[in-house]
């Protein structure tokens, strides 16, 4: 287990919605290895969420493929191959927390679905990860009683508990105030430190992205402009990236 290091490869990914002519993603190639924390930036509507959904297998690309440890990621394979679906976990912008369960049950049901753990083991793991995200004491609370920031923590605890090889986070700090956002970033960093995990996250917030990521990509007109590090990204000569960082509108071609 210690030596296991996931490799996630995307080759020649194209995507468009069947009813629309616009190519949302054009020929995206990306290889990620254990320890990579890839931040995907872009204007709203640039296709950040779409890219994450394709990586997770929720959407199928029009062309190209996503390969995780040699296995092709698509809808069928995700259903067939238990190991594949266990390796991938995605946290959605809205959190995807079920109102009818309390905090730890929200984690428990996902574990019951995707692992072979016994009921006491699942409970223990749920409590452990709630503790990790700073929700100790709130295990039996209903989602209604939790604030926006706490719900975000809960949804993180749920994906953490699945211990995936690839962790996909769709705008993990959306709508949070800077102090709460900072706490969320620290939680994710702490989790990533001790594990062989690939994290891909989208964000509209530069400061969050720069703190969390060690690689940055910028989605622009369907292509992913990449720089090897956050430092290089900030210094990138690409005018689209520079305009974005400075918050100036730049004509799309």
């Amino acid at each position, binding site marked *: 287990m210690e030596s296991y290091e996931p490799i996630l490869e995307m080759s020649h990914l194209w995507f468009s919605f069947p009813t629309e002519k616009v190519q949302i993603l054009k020929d995206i190639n990306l290889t990620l290895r254990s320890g990579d924390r890839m931040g995907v930036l*872009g204007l709203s509507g640039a296709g950040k969420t779409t890219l994450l959904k394709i990586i997770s297998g929720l959407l199928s690309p029009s062309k190209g493929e996503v390969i995780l440890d040699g296995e092709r990621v698509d809808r069928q394979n995700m259903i067939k191959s238990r190991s594949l679906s266990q390796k991938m976990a995605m946290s959605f912008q809205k959190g995807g927390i079920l109102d009818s369960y309390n905090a730890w049950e929200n984690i428990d049901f996902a574990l019951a679905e995707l692992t072979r753990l016994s009921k006491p083991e699942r409970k223990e793991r749920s409590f452990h990860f709630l503790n990790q995200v700073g929700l100790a004491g709130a295990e039996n609370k209903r989602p209604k009683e939790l604030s926006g920031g706490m719900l975000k923590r809960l949804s993180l605890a749920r994906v953490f508990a699945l211990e995936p090889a690839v962790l996909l986070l769709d705008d993990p700090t959306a709508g949070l105030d800077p102090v709460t956002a900072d706490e969320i970033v620290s939680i994710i960093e702490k989790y990533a430190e001790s594990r062989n995990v690939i994290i891909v996250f989208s964000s509209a917030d530069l400061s969050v992205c720069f703190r969390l990521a060690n690689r940055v990509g910028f989605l622009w007109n369907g292509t992913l402009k990449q720089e090897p590090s956050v430092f290089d990204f900030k210094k990138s000569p690409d005018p689209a990236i520079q305009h974005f960082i400075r*918050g*100036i509108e730049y004509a799309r071609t």
Partner: protein
Amino acid sequence: MLELKAISKTFGNRAVLRSVSLTLNRGQICFVLGRSGVGKSVLLKTIVGLIPQDSGEVWIQSEKTDPQNEEQMVSVRQKCGLVFQMPALLDSLTLQENLEFGLKPEKLARLGKYLDWVQLSRERLSRYPAEVSFGTQKKASVVRTLLREPQFILFDEPTTGLDPVSRQVTNQMIRNVVKESHSGCIVVSHDVQSAIELASTIILLDQGQVIFQGTPESFCSSEQPLARAFCNGMVLLDH
């Protein structure tokens, strides 16, 4: 002048606002910052009487508002427009119909000007809210408020969740609106950067109380721990 005097509001046993006071002149922009769930939106809803305060007074142009008096509130709301965080346009009407909804026809004369201020193109107006982007909806909802020619405009989290470019566009829009219409603005937000760029005054709320009030410059150099935490979250560009 818009004046809040010691506004307090409690929900159940949770004190959301504790004796909050502020003064705003026309042509000024006041940013109300604070963590999520701190009562910022409640404050705005109190000003226009959507949520009546438990104690304290709201004065708009030397007239005291009375949330119980629905008729007076209608005239208060004409003087003081609130732009919601979600665009809150009527789904069943096109943008144009949304703008015209319940509006005296003569007020429509300035539509073109307002569309320019927010950089919204006329062609978009024949679409339904669901057919245009979030940003466009938001612009339309600002125009809808502008058409009423309010003396004060309250913005609820105008830049939350926007990418840096849309954020700049929104800030430019607020700046334009204040400059051109000479209205006073209260902007509720947790976007420190925008606050520093735009605000005449920054107010920081914590646990329902005003814990900082001052200029953007003094905010950045404040020793107040929460103010520091907010400023630390900013992107520091090395250029």
